[in-house]
């Protein structure tokens, strides 16, 4: 009798534990809009394919934009980005963790990790997620409610924050918090610099604000669109 209770208890523990943690699934980025020649390929593939509004950019996709092109993406819900021309971005990881037992707020975790190899990236991030951007020299931890721009070229990485706060960790150096109205450049001569002190940063700030607004509009339009309807 006691053995039967023991087995029943064991089965109950297995049954409960199997539903305990949420399930994690890889998701794909949505293309909100594209202009000019934008191509993507899988990491192990040499074949590049053009990006259009139906393209789903999943993990290990490498996106390349021509000099006069740009593409707007929704990496995960709330994380909108514009990739300007002459850029190369790798989508390393996009995952959602969901509690299947919940019928309401089922999302437990969102995770986005991308690698900006060259070019630029304007990011508008609302909501909650672990969002990391890796550049050749700097790792960036994105906090919710922020708008910023990253530019990467062969020798320098520049981060201009327009709204919110971003943490950046250079390969050689200390972690830096860049707040709205400041920018930072690596290799760094100074830590963070006020935007009005630098002509390039001034232009970046004004244009990034405008792009942030456009991304907001695209995000709203994408939300209103029916699933499967481009």
């Amino acid at each position, binding site marked *: 009798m006691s053995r039967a209770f023991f087995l029943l208890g064991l089965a109950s523990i297995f049954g409960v534990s199997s539903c305990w943690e949420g399930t994690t699934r890889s998701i794909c980025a949505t293309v909100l809009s594209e202009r000019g020649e934008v191509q993507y390929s899988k990491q192990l593939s040499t074949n590049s394919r053009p990006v259009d509004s139906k393209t789903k950019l999943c993990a290990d996709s490498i996106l390349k934009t021509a000099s006069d092109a740009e593409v707007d993406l929704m990496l995960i819900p709330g994380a909108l980005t514009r990739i300007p021309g002459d850029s190369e971005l790798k989508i390393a990881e996009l995952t959602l963790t969901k509690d299947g037992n919940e019928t309401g707020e089922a999302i437990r975790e969102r995770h986005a990790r991308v690698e900006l190899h060259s070019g630029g990236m304007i990011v*508008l991030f*609302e909501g909650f997620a672990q969002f990391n951007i890796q550049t050749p020299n700097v790792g960036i931890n994105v906090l919710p*409610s922020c*708008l910023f721009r990253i530019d990467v070229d062969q020798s320098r990485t520049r981060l201009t924050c*327009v*709204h919110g706060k971003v943490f950046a960790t250079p390969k050689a150096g*200390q*972690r*830096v*918090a*860049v*707040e*709205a*109205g*400041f920018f930072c450049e690596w290799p760094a001569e*100074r*830590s*963070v*610099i*006020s*935007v*009005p*002190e630098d*002509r390039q*940063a*001034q*232009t970046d*700030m*004004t244009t990034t*604000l*405008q792009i*942030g*607004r456009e991304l*907001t*509009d695209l*995000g*709203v339009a994408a939300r209103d669109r029916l699933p499967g309807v481009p």
Partner: protein
Amino acid sequence: MPSPTETLRFCAILATAIFLSRQTGNAQDAGPGPSDAVAPTITVRASASDNSGAQFLSAFISTAMRSNGKNLVSCVATAVKLRPDLAGKIVVCSLNIARIKAQSVTGRVSLDTIDQIIKAAIAAAPSAASAIVTAAIESEPYARDSIIAAAISAAPDQESGIRVAVASSSSMSISPAVIAFNPAEAGPSGAVNSPEQPPSGP
């Protein structure tokens, strides 16, 4: 989140810095120093070049991004008062800031916020009313009527100028005339391919 007094202090610093820079014309270096701690003050380096407009706007955006509600409106008023020549751009930037900060489901700025921004900007520089209204309508075409009403209530003596500016501006707002669709006007004239035909006689 900065307190209201702190945000007002930002505005005061912004105003003082720009005023002093215009008076002296000398460059000032006001970097935050080697520390990682970011100082919450925005200073503007003096410049008599064409760059001063971009410099002013970036300083305004930096300050306004940290402001909410009435503090944002007071920053708009301060900025427009200092640079009425940039009034249109300042208002558009402030509307964009309000939109990004609002995180509204519709992606639109509330009419109340638009009303406050327009009234504050025009009260600060009534002579720039036309430029402000034109820029605001271009930015937020859905709020065209609210913008015009707010502008006229803030500067009644500028009403004729505002009306002329609105009439001459090519607004992208969707008017009822654009929404109204008559298939008879769109299709080939007189050749409707349908089994249902109009009655032949009276």
